[in-house]
């Protein structure tokens, strides 16, 4: 997948984009995230942001540049390097009716806050009846040659944790709409933004329309009848590219389902698609063993077993950390060719 492909895929993607009546604006994935926070902070005084270097610097990726000037240090809080304390403070403020956004400089650094998320944020409503409407967001994913500690996909660490929601947008529209929905959500939401897409994805987004994408609903990124690819995040573009290639070269049409929300999972969209196509390939960027694909496969087994004309298969990263050097990282990551080959294998089955 080269960058220009990603961009053209993104631009042609969404029919909604073209439909907008008013003006549109070219918006990157990164700008979409920025705008979602800006708009929510502007309209809702209970929304505030805390994290490392989010204020003076505007965040490691400059997503919150200018926020400190606009909203002041009470609502844009530069914290010490203390992820547990960041998430903890967000939980407490959330109990009090605020809607905090806790930024992890890289999503990898969510690990030191693991206890706070899994044992405090996730369980508090069940235990005490008191909710914690917070968002924890940060850049995930590989492809940027950032090595084992700045490239991870962490969804599987939290997949088995009731009480959390998880979001992984692929498009600028969804990045914006899901973040707004996440901020408004009454419960803790982990929001995984893919750093590879930050500046590579550009879409025309309507200026006047308030974009909100409800949590828990998948999006049919590309319709098809012969095989379903279930995926999310940056892999949506590789899946789309593979689908184009198969369409051109093999004449088969792959449906690409972009999950957008991982927890709660939109099982009915997946099952409906699989029942139509009879074949399903799950693609994710995280390693294979114990990855999120397992849950998807299990649910498909449970709900669409009789409709399966081929085994459910997975295309994923290697079962290793994310290697640093570009040739290694490229080998590690699932590539469009893998998806093409997997789809062909399944179509021939």
């Amino acid at each position: 997948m080269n960058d220009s492909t990603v961009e053209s895929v993104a631009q042609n993607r969404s029919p909604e984009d073209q439909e907008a009546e008013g003006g549109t604006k070219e918006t990157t994935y990164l700008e979409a995230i920025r705008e979602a926070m800006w708009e929510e902070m502007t309209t809702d005084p209970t929304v505030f942001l805390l994290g490392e270097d989010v204020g003076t610097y505007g965040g490691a990726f400059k997503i919150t540049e200018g926020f400190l000037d606009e909203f002041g240090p009470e609502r844009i809080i530069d914290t010490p390097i203390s992820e547990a304390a960041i998430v903890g403070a967000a939980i407490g403020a959330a109990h009090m009716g605020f809607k905090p956004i806790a930024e992890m400089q890289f999503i990898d650094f969510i690990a030191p806050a693991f206890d706070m998320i899994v044992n405090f944020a996730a369980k508090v409503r069940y235990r005490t009846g008191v909710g914690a409407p917070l968002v924890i967001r940060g850049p995930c994913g590989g492809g940027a040659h950032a090595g084992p500690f700045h490239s991870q996909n962490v969804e599987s660490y939290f997949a088995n944790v009731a009480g959390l929601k998880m979001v992984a947008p692929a498009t600028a529209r969804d990045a914006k709409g899901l973040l707004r929905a996440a901020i408004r959500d009454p419960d803790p939401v982990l929001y995984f933004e893919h750093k590879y897409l930050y500046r590579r994805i550009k879409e025309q987004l309507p200026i006047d329309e308030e974009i909100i994408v409800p949590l828990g609903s998948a999006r049919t990124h590309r319709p098809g009848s012969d095989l379903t690819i279930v995926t999310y995040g940056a892999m949506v573009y590789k899946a789309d590219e593979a689908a184009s290639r198969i369409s051109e070269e093999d004449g088969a049409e792959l449906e690409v389902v972009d999950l957008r929300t991982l927890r709660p999972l939109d099982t009915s969209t997946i099952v409906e698609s699989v029942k139509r196509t009879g074949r399903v390939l799950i693609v994710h960027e995280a390693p294979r063993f114990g990855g999120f694909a397992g849950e998807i496969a299990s649910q498909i087994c449970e709900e669409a077993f009789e409709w399966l004309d081929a085994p459910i298969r997975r295309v994923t990263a290697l079962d290793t950390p994310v290697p640093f050097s570009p040739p290694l990282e490229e080998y590690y990551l699932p590539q469009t060719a893998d998806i093409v080959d997997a789809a062909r294998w399944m179509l021939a089955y």
Partner: protein
Amino acid sequence: MFRFLVLSRGLEERLEDLLKQGQVVGDLYDGRGQEATVVGSAFALEEGDWLAPSLREMGALLTRGLDPRMLLLQYLAREGSPSAGRDKAHHLTMPHLGLLGPIGPLGAHLCVLNGVALAFRMRGERRVCLTYLGDGASRTGAAHEGLNLAAVQRLPLVVILIHNRWAFATRSDQQAAVADWIDVAAAYGVPAASVDGNDVLHVYDETRRAVDRARRGEGVTLIVAETYRMRGHAQHDAQEYVPEEELHEWRARDPIDLFERYLIDSGFESRPSLAVVKEAVRRELAAAVEEALSAPMPEPEGARFGTVEGEEIPVPWTRREAVYEDVHQPTLRP
């Protein structure tokens, strides 16, 4: 104040009995011997302030207005308890009482309480947060990060570090190499004070000062309460590792006896007037125990409480009425 000391002591005694009768579910971490520390400090708060216990601060919860009946129901894991049996003991968050419940992993509650303090500040409210940290709990990464963030942000927070000499079976000098636990404060640049944790008025005075400071917007204070854990870590722990002389010494400094003597010696109260308080507490607790024992256990389906708003936790597929008829139904291709 005397009432809360006696109430806390009495409730923990009742709970011990109830545990022996197999009525308390799980285990019991009791705070006997430390009542002056927790009652004296909690007493320094005002309405609208928030408090978060660590693991044995029963007296603080009572002082903040939590009904002992609610606590009994919690320990007996009954339906009508604040968490309806889903969690235990002091793990309860009750906004109307300004109570933030801790979780099992120690130290985390401090970080969360910071958020409450942040909220006070963002709302322009002059309210104060107070929390407890065991000598052991202060060694967790969470406690460090939380205390540091509070200090940097000058949050309206008072931290009572309970130096009770033990963390489970580990002596506090194996928890930290400090000569004096007040040294902990230096690392965060916050003012600190040591108090005799068995002297309820001393605790109250020093906490009051810290609370006032926090309320004036002058930030965090750390108070080290020197006291002693008189019982084992939990009821199952016979604390054989504790030197008898040490217990003996501290027993002679029982916080309730000390306060009682003070009240009488200073002429504020008479022995009979205090006996009246004790008797009232005894009766209140007896009635509460009876009530709690007759309260129902939760319905099993109470386990299906939603983990997020509006969530319906489904009945497991194996327990649905129609499980057998279902066969061939949901999955067979038409």
